[in-house]
């Protein structure tokens, strides 16, 4: 028993924030979470903030200090956590450990990233592409001309070859996630796309085209964790974290046994189900890491929502759509909600909490939700399972 509850969540709009810096986005999300939890700044005893590469995009390191500073919570300790695209999943996990340690009752977690636009450094697509590649192996992947979309393209080609997965399956995931984002005011894109558009977009890294790739986004997310015993002081709808796990894998794809599944995700999921004492069929709703459409399809299989190789079938049957057996990425996912790398893991928690509370935009019936946050091409995966208790 972790004895940890989530009593508040907040996030900025994901997208382009031309006028805001990292610290300003962070403050916006953190204040929303604090207000949602109905606590004050003084109640925060520690903070863990995920950020992938503020050095690269804004020339700003020492993120813990700057995030504590701009939120006016000094001298409260503030740690910055980096696990590539799973940075805030890992930060959340550090927050869980901090509360489980008994040293803290209330902890602020979250994440932030400025990837593209901004008043301090103006990035372009080439620079942002190179920045994302920092999550892959510099010596043996970046050096060989591989890009970040290229990594997932290697998985897609292998999956198609092994299991007969079609490009159409991938495009259907993009269509689903754009549809879910269409009503989400915090999403980067609020427009539906057709299967034809998704199939015929400009190629980025074959077989992945533009609509298979998530956008470069700016944004931040935050959540307030509380010792579960104390949660009832703050809210009546108690959401517990019943599992929090993390696993690693080789950074380079070529050193793995399989290119059609992420071992880090399988291990973290197995440990999470064990910790929560549930099975994959008990999950009512999931946020999965769809940085590329193929990543969502592989997640279905790694999380046990279907058998290995049957991700395409699951999509064809509509089971991961709203109204299906296991709705996935009801907020639009990374694909359409956006993917400010460091903010993504806790933004997933935002959606799960909203769903479990019955406050979501695309509300489904759910008591147990899972968040699957992948770093890089699977070198890291964190899994969190949340449950509404009454």
């Amino acid at each position, binding site marked *: 028993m972790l004895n940890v509850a989530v009593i508040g969540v907040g996030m900025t709009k994901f997208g382009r924030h031309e006028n805001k810096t990292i610290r300003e986005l962070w403050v916006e999300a953190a204040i929303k979470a604090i207000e949602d939890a109905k606590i004050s700044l003084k109640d925060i005893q520690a903070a863990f903030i995920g950020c992938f590469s503020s050095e690269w995009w804004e020339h700003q390191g020492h993120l813990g200090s700057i995030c504590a500073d701009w939120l006016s919570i000094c001298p409260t300790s503030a740690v910055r956590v980096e696990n590539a695209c799973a940075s805030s999943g890992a930060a959340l996990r550090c927050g869980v450990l901090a509360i489980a340690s008994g040293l803290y009752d209330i902890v602020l977690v979250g994440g932030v990233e400025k990837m593209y636009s901004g008043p301090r450094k103006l990035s372009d*697509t*080439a620079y942002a*592409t*190179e920045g994302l*590649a920092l999550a892959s192996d510099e*010596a*043996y*992947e*970046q050096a*060989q*001309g*591989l*890009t970040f*979309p*290229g990594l997932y*393209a*290697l*998985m*897609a*080609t*292998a999956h198609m*070859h092994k299991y007969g997965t079609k490009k159409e399956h991938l495009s259907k995931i993009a269509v689903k996630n754009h549809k879910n984002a269409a009503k989400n005011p915090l999403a980067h894109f609020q427009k539906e796309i057709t299967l034809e558009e998704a199939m015929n977009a*400009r*190629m*980025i*890294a*074959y*077989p*992945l085209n533009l609509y298979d790739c998530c956008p470069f986004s700016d944004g931040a997310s935050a959540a307030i964790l509380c010792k579960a015993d104390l949660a009832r002081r703050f809210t009546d709808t108690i959401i517990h974290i019943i599992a929090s796990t993390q696993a690693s894998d*080789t950074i*380079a*794809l*070529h*050193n793995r046994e399989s*290119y059609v599944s992420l071992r880090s995700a399988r291990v973290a999921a197995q440990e999470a189900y064990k910790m929560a004492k549930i099975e994959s069929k008990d999950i009512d709703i999931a946020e999965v890491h769809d940085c590329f459409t193929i990543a969502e399809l592989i997640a279905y299989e790694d999380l046990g929502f279907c058998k290995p190789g049957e991700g395409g079938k699951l999509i064809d049957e509509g089971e991961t759509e709203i109204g299906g057996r296991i709705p996935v990425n009801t907020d639009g996912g990374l694909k359409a909600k956006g993917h400010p790398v460091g903010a993504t893991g806790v933004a997933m928690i935002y959606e799960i909490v909203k769903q479990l509370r019955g406050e979501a935009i695309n509300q489904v019936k759910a008591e147990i939700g899972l968040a699957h946050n992948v770093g890089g091409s699977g070198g890291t995966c964190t899994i969190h399972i949340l449950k509404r208790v009454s």
Partner: protein
Amino acid sequence: MQERDASIQSFYEFIKEGKLMGTKCLKCGYINLPPRPICQACGSKDWEWFQFSGKGKLETYTIIHVPPAKFKDLAPYIVGIVKLIEGSSITAIIKSKLDEVKIGLDLIVDYMEYKGEKLLCFKVEESQS
């Protein structure tokens, strides 16, 4: 060849000499590519250099249409993972016509001079084309 350590630098020094080298674990026999100071299979620190024949098959591939700045001149180009006949795999640029690349293609190691560096790459085996 033990005088070179099992490092990234050693790997690229060998590439300059036209050799594709990994490390063979003296404990469990696993062949680590790229070379590693700690065996990926068993954690042993004892190893010796192992030279690959350079022959292998394409395990998976992508065609990079949006390249990093450094590789701009080459795009679109193929990057693949090659499984060598000795069992290890490595990522590299694949010299093939874009419409002829496919999983299972027989490949042989090759090298490319690019921007003053010697790049590891693989080409389609002659006998096949």
